[in-house]
């Protein structure tokens, strides 16, 4: 088997793509962000409920897309549940970094998210990995109501 492929589609990633965690909707309250990657047809509906001091109390998603975008969304929800807004923003920054640049000593705190480091060798797939995070960043910005983000207008998380 081709090693770059195995690097991109690591087992953890494929497992999350086939069995996405936190797949579903939050019935009441919270933020709903619709994320769109029109160049691929990836789509995510991210639901976030913030608790006291902006902590991420509940985080779910639905949508469709490639293995990379689904796994990214799934792993993101696992990683960010219970984190403060500031921690979530820092994860997002670090995630964008590992999918675009060579980071020899990626923060161990990223944990499983480090499986996405293989994406940087597939520039056309970076958008797929980033889509859920762009949606999360929008959720952090508004903390309630609805919004839409698109990878075509994504400014890189700033």
């Amino acid at each position, binding site marked *: 088997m081709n090693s*770059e492929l195995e690097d991109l*589609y690591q087992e953890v990633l494929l497992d999350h793509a086939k069995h996405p965690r936190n797949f579903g909707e939050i019935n009441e309250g919270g933020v709903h962000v619709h994320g769109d990657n029109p160049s691929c047809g990836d789509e995510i509906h991210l639901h976030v409920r913030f608790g006291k001091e902006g902590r991420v109390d509940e985080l779910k998603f639905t949508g469709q897309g*490639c*293995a*990379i975008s689904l796994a990214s969304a799934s792993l993101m929800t696992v990683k960010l549940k219970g984190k403060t807004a500031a921690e979530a923003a820092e994860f997002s920054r670090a995630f964008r970094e590992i999918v675009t640049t060579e980071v020899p000593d990626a923060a161990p705190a990223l944990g499983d998210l480090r499986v996405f480091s293989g994406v940087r060798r597939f520039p056309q797939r970076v958008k797929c990995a980033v889509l859920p995070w762009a949606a999360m960043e929008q959720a952090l910005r508004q903390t309630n109501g609805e919004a839409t983000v698109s990878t075509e207008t994504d400014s890189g998380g700033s």
Partner: protein
Amino acid sequence: MNAAEPRPSPVDWNALRADFPILRQEVRGRPLIYFDNAASTQKPRAVLDALRRFDECDHANVHRGLHELSSRATAAFERTRQRVADFLGAASADEIVFTRGTTEAINLVANAWGGKFLRAGDVILLTEMEHHSNLVPWQLLAERSGARLRFVPVREDDGTLALDQLHALLTPEVKLFAFTHISNSLGTINPVAELCAAAREIGAVTLVDAAQSAGHLPIDVRELGCDFLAFSGHKMCGPTGIGVLYGRAEILDAMPPWHGGGEMIVSVTLEKSTFKNAPHKFEAGTPNISGVIGLGAAIDYLEEVGRDRIFEHDQGLALYAMDRLAELPGVRTLGPRDRRGGLVSFVVHAAHPHDVTTFADQYGLALRGGHHCNQPLMRKLGLPGTARASFYFYNTREEVDGMIAILAAAERFFA
């Protein structure tokens, strides 16, 4: 081809393949299998040489220089216009407008023809299988003019147009019917002559998007009975940035210019200008001269092979690919079996089209994955997109076999 002539000997497709230098390479250690011809085809040595020869020997601006190089460039440029007219069976070279491509040709019609002849309440009839380039210009025109869009549905079972609804859709408000000759995402060949005849009965103008057909099967605009037809050079062995709008003389003459500038005027004062006749009034500014030269060389090359034989070859490859894909249990092909051009769209149950395409690329197989600029159609079919293999005459059955082996591996990998 003259029917009285004896049929030339069978084509040596392998020899033709050897005319394409780019195909002789490995990608990631495997022989390149280039199956993205619906997006862009490759250029034979004859086209590459013609481009180089022109730039090394004859390049100058056309139509206005009183010197030898300009004369040569102008002669070659206008000779190609006649060549294109013959290629399409047009009545005259004056019916051939050079554009940047199919997209610009359609935008030209939407602006110049649509701006003058469409009114609020008029209807533009399209189909649900149009490429965005034959949809978005009409949406913009509808917004400006108050005209409405209407669509011939695509049948979900076999990806053909619901022709039984055509007459109900062609009401007197329909002023234009624009549709694709061959669907770039499903491979469906539409019955162009029949559609044009139906439109003509109610006095509607017709535009055929021939981006996927011009280099793939014989076209005669007078037999088809269309008013406009558009295609791109780079999907038929020519360069990018050059395309053609065919327009029936009477209609082109009635249209105002679109872009203003040099080359398209007769006389200019500070207040007002008068314009040349078609096609020159639609070609403001210095055109893509070497693009035209390259397009001419591509037409010469294709005519030598024969588009009827290219069609037979490509369709044969598409049907072979459909049969072989049917052997893979987790793969479903889309679109009709009959009346199909040389491409196959398919869905791999276990994997998203982009994962399939990335996987294939690692084995040197160039597929296209995604919505193919057909977002509304994909939405209707309930698909995020498809993977697509699109063929040209330099592709082989062995390459199709190679694709099947790679897809079988992809199924195992993503299962």
